[in-house]
C-alpha cells in the first residue's frame, strides 16, 4: 500500500535494504554465504512485480475479451462463417485475447523498463537493470485498477450497444466504417481518459522507482519517465483517442 501512497519512501526502503545487505556482506568478509542468500532473496523479489504485471494483464484481458465479443457478434451477423466455425473462432479468439493481454503486459513491462533504463543512462544513472525492472513492475499496480474500471465501462458499452452488421468481413474498410461510430462512443472515450489518468499515476510511481533504482535526482527521474510517457500518450491521442481504454 505504501507504494501507492508514498512510493518515494517505499522504493527508498527497498534500495536502502539492498545496500545494507551488500554492505553487511562486504564487512563481515566471511559472510559470503549470507550475501549469496541475500542476493538470492533479491532475485526472488521479482516475483511480486511479476505477479503484479500478471494481474494487470489478466484484468486488461477482460476488456479485450469483451471487445473481441463485439467482433465475433459482427461476424455472426454477417453470416459469412458457418455456425460451427464461428463457435471455434469465438472460443479461440476469447482465449487468445486473454493470453495476448497477459503476454503483452510482460513484453511492455520489459520494454518500458529497458526504455527507462536507457533514458536514465543519459542522466548518468547507476544501478542494475533488474532493479529497474523490479521497480517498474511495481508501477503496474495502478493499471490493475485502470483495467477494472475499463472493464466495467466496456461491459456497460458492449451490453447496451447495437452491433453493426457488416456484409463483407473481408473488407477492412467496411469493418472500419462499421466500427467507426462505435469507437466514438462516450463510454469508450471515457475508458480512454481513465486509462491515461491511471498511466499518469503509474508514471508517478515510476519516477520514484527510477530515482532509487538508478540513483537519479528527482528532476532527472521526472525527465526519464516523463519523456517516454508523454510521447506515448501523445501518439495515442493523435492516432485514436478511444484506443487507450481497450
Amino acid at each position, binding site marked *: 500500500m505504501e507504494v*501507492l*501512497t*508514498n*512510493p*518515494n*519512501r517505499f522504493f527508498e526502503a527497498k534500495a536502502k535494504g539492498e545496500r545494507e545487505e551488500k554492505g553487511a556482506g562486504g564487512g563481515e568478509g566471511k559472510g559470503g554465504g549470507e550475501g549469496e542468500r541475500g542476493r538470492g532473496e533479491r532475485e526472488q523479489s521479482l516475483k511480486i512485480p511479476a505477479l503484479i504485471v500478471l494481474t494487470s494483464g489478466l484484468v486488461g484481458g477482460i476488456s479485450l475479451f469483451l471487445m473481441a465479443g463485439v467482433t465475433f457478434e459482427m461476424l455472426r*451477423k454477417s453470416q459469412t462463417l458457418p455456425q460451427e466455425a464461428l463457435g471455434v473462432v469465438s472460443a479461440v479468439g476469447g482465449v487468445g485475447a486473454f493470453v495476448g493481454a497477459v503476454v503483452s503486459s510482460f513484453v511492455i513491462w520489459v520494454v518500458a523498463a529497458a526504455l527507462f533504463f536507457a533514458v536514465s543512462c543519459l542522466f548518468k544513472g547507476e544501478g542494475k537493470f533488474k532493479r529497474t525492472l523490479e521497480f517498474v513492475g511495481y508501477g503496474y499496480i*495502478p493499471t490493475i*485498477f485502470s483495467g477494472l*474500471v475499463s472493464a466495467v*465501462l466496456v461491459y*456497460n*458499452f458492449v451490453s*447496451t*450497444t*447495437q*452491433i*453493426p*452488421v*457488416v*456484409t463483407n468481413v473481408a473488407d477492412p474498410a*467496411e469493418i472500419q*466504417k*462499421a466500427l*467507426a*461510430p*462505435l*469507437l*466514438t*462512443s*462516450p*463510454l*469508450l472515450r*471515457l475508458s480512454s481518459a*481513465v486509462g491515461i*489518468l*491511471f498511466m*499518469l*499515476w503509474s508514471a*508517478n*510511481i515510476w519516477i*520514484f522507482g527510477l530515482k532509487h533504482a538508478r540513483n537519479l535526482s*528527482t528532476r532527472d527521474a521526472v525527465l526519464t519517465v516523463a519523456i517516454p510517457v508523454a510521447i506515448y500518450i501523445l501518439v495515442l491521442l493523435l492516432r485514436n483517442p478511444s484506443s487507450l481504454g481497450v
Partner: protein
Amino acid sequence: MRFPSSLSLLFLALLVVGVLVVGVVGLAGSGVSEAQAQVAREEQKTSIQITGYQLTPEVLMPNDLGTVTVTVKNAELAKSVNIKEARLLSKELKVASDSYFNIGRLGHGESLDLTFTLKATACPDGIYYPRVLVKGEDAQNIRYSFPVRVDSTLLTLAVKDVPEDIFKGERARIELAVGNPRPNTATGVKITAVAEKREEAEEEEKGGEGVAGGEGVAGGEELVPSEVFVGALSRDETKTASFNFTPQTNGTRLLNFKLEFKNGENLHSAELSLPLKVTESKKKPELVLTGIEVEPSASGSGIYNYKITGDINNAGLEDANGVVMKIGDAEGVEATHPYKSYFVGLLSPDDFSSFELDVKVSEDRENEGEGTKVPLRIEYKDEDGFLFSKTEYIAIERQQGQRTGSSGVGVGELPLSVVVVLLFVVAVVVGLIAYSWKKR
C-alpha cells in the same frame, strides 16, 4: 176504239206521276254524277303520291328529337310535275325543321325523299298523327298522315346476382341485368360505376382512417371494371354486366351504377343504387410481423444504414400468394441493396418465413423526434391474383455512439452514477499523486 173512262183516267194519272218521278230522279241523278266526275277529274290531274315514310327512332321518348322521311313519287306516266311546297303539320308534336319551298320538277315515275325533324316536346305517351302537305302545280295537293308513337319507358337496370356476404378486402362479383322493355331498339347501352358520394364524404371525415389502418387494394378503384359496354339492345332483350367489388372499409356501402343508352340520337340515363353491407372476413390471410430486429450496419456521413430482420406469419385461414416485403415510401428513408425487397412467396395458413431488408435513413430523418419510423410494406395476392398490401411501421432506435442508444447514453451524456464514480476515482488518483509528492 173505246176505253172504259175510269180505268183510262187511272192509267193516265199513273203515267203522269211516273213521268214526273222519273224526271225528278233523273234530274237528281244527273247532279251526283257531276260531282263524281269533278272528283274523278281532280284525281286524274293529281299525279303526286306519297309512297312511304320512315321514322327515326321508331318510337320517341318525351323530349326526343326524331326525323321522319316521306317519299314523294310522281305517278304520271309521261309528264313531270312541279312541286311547289312540302310541309309537316302537327298540333301535339313540335316540328323542328323548316318547310320545303319551290322544290322543283319531279320527273315521271321518279321519287323524292323529304325529311322533317320532329320533337316530342312535353307530350304524354301516346300515338300522334302529324300530316305532310305537298303542294304541286295546277292545284295538285296531297295530304298524308302517319302515326308517331311516344313512349317514356326507360331501360331497366336490376341486380341479377350479389354474394350474400361481402368481406372487406375480398373480391365480390356483382352481376347486373339490363333489359329493354321499350318497343324499339336502344343503342350504345353502357353501365358505369359511379363513385359513392355519401361514403366518400364519410371517409374524408374520418381523416383517411382506412389508409392509417394500413390495409387497402392496390390500384385504388374498388369497382372493376369501372364501365361495361353492352351495345345495342333489341326490344324485350336482356343482357348481363359483371363488376368486381373489392371493398376496403367495413360498414354499409352504397354502390351507384349509371345506365346510359341512346334512343336514336337522344341520350338517356337511369341509375341504380345498391346498398351492401361489408364485414370483416374471417378467413382471409392475416399477415403478422414478429421478432423484428433492427440492427445498424455500415454508416456514412449523414446516412445511417440498418438491417431489419424478422418473421412474417400468416395467422389467417387462407393462403397468401406471392408475399413480398418492401420498404415503403417515406421521406428520408430509402431501401438499399442487397435486400431492397424480400420475396417470401406462398405463405400458407399457420406458416411463417424469415425476412430481411436493408434501409438507409438520412440524418435529417434521424433528427426528427425520438426515433425514426420506417414503413414496412407487405404485399400479397389472393387466389384470384388481386394485389393486397399492408403497411407496418418499424421504430428504429438510434445507434449508440452516434447519437443516442437504447440505454439512454448519448453524446456528452453519461449516467450520473458513472460520472460520480469516475470523479471519485479521479480525485483519489490525483490525491494519491499529490500525497506522494508531499511525503517524498
